[in-house]
């Protein structure tokens, strides 16, 4: 069981900044995120896009903002449960919570901060008959362990970076790699596109474009896919062991929607007059995932919400302790790792 003071669900910019604000109050944090890396949408969807409305940064790439946030929180040693989705929550007799992920990892904390953005990212599934029947029986939407595909016949569908990168990677592992995309053009890093071209020329990747997978065949497990090439009458039947559909991810509020929280417009209602707490005491919602009158889904608003939320969480954990907020210019930043950052002392010296 992982124990922490504040369990943050969602490791996007708001969740990451919560670690910092909590750390200033000597509260420890642990983050859960369904994606395999921290940063949320900033890392997953638009790492190379510039953001212009982060106060103090005239321009910053989304990916760089995440890197900076991770750097800023390092001294507070947050824990991470990545690649797992928060599934269930159970309130304990002492008002604390146990959150369990889809993989069974349990987390125990007195305070829950939901910073889940638009929800957890779920793979976008192609519209094919029998698709669900073959899920985990030959059809996959992400690759967890590439070794599964050793000496197997694999067909990958998609036109983005992940389709290109995995085709390249599996070309050395699988016995046969076929890449199917609706267009001749791919949208990915230039060197990935060039590498696929090279592997195609060497006969290591079988490229079928413009084409689409239109059918799945097999008994209990997948044995073949039907491919329709644009403009051709006859479908191609390709014998495969695995079909990996890489059509990107789309966020879904998911299991959090069943936690008994008040939901409005796909977002969690919070008390914005006070501390961004939800209708369940001890559970807060901050950043894009919450809603209140006048809500704006901006990273900078998430930072503000995280800050106020941490003050409230402190009071909740230590109801009898007196505390006033201290400026970092005055108090510096003392990490849990023993590091201390503070303003250099002014030199007082007479001039003769």
């Amino acid at each position: 069981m992982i124990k922490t003071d504040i369990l943050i669900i969602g490791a996007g910019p708001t969740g990451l900044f919560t670690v910092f604000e909590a750390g200033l109050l000597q509260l420890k944090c642990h983050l859960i995120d369904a994606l395999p890396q921290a940063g949320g949408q900033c890392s997953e969807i638009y790492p190379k896009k510039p953001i212009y409305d982060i106060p103090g940064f005239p321009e910053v790439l989304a990916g760089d903002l995440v890197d900076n946030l991770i750097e800023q929180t390092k001294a507070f040693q947050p824990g991470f449960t990545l690649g797992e989705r928060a599934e269930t929550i159970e309130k304990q007799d002492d008002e604390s919570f146990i959150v369990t992920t889809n993989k069974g990892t349990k987390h125990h904390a007195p305070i829950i901060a939901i910073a889940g953005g638009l929800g957890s990212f779920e793979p976008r599934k192609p519209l094919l008959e029998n698709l669900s029947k073959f899920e985990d029986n030959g059809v996959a939407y992400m690759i967890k362990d590439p070794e599964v595909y050793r000496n197997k016949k694999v067909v990958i569908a998609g036109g983005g970076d992940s389709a290109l990168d995995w085709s390249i990677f599996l070309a050395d592992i699988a016995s046969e790699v076929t890449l199917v995309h609706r267009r001749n053009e791919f949208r990915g890093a230039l060197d990935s596109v060039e590498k696929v071209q090279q592997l195609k020329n060497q006969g290591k990747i079988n490229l079928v474009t413009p084409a689409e997978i239109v059918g799945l065949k097999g008994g209990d497990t997948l044995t073949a896919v039907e491919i329709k090439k644009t403009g051709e009458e006859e479908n191609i039947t390709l014998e495969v062991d695995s079909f990996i559909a890489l059509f990107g991810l789309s966020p879904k509020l998911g299991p959090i929607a069943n936690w008994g929280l008040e939901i409005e417009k796909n977002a969690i209602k919070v008390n914005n007059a006070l501390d961004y707490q939800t209708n369940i005491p001890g559970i807060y919602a901050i950043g894009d995932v919450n809603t209140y009158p006048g809500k704006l889904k901006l990273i900078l608003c998430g930072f503000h919400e995280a800050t106020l939320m941490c003050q409230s969480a402190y009071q909740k954990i230590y109801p009898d302790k007196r505390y006033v907020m201290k400026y970092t210019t005055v108090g510096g930043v003392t990490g849990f790792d023993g590091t201390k950052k503070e303003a250099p002392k002014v030199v007082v010296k007479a001039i003769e």
Partner: protein
Amino acid sequence: MSDIKIKITDREGVLHEVDAPTDMNMNLMEVVRSYELAPEGTIGICGGMAMCASCQCYITSKHELPEMSDDEDAMLAEAFHVADNSRLGCQIHMTPDLEGLEVVLAPES
């Protein structure tokens, strides 16, 4: 006044005739959101960067639209329910010559 009238059929098949401002740097996805014609969180997920296809729509009137950028074209190549008249709403800016535009929102995916 610099509003235009456009017709938007939502995902339930209901037709809405709405006024869209042309002087607010708005795009079609934002018009749909401002009138709440699709639930929050199901449209404009990437914010309008042509990176998610949640604002895909079908253009059913004969208006001449701005040409597709490579980004939009590539995104539609990966989207589902795509038809010849598919566009991403976030890439269609409201301009006076779109008066009378008719669109149908594509299903959520």
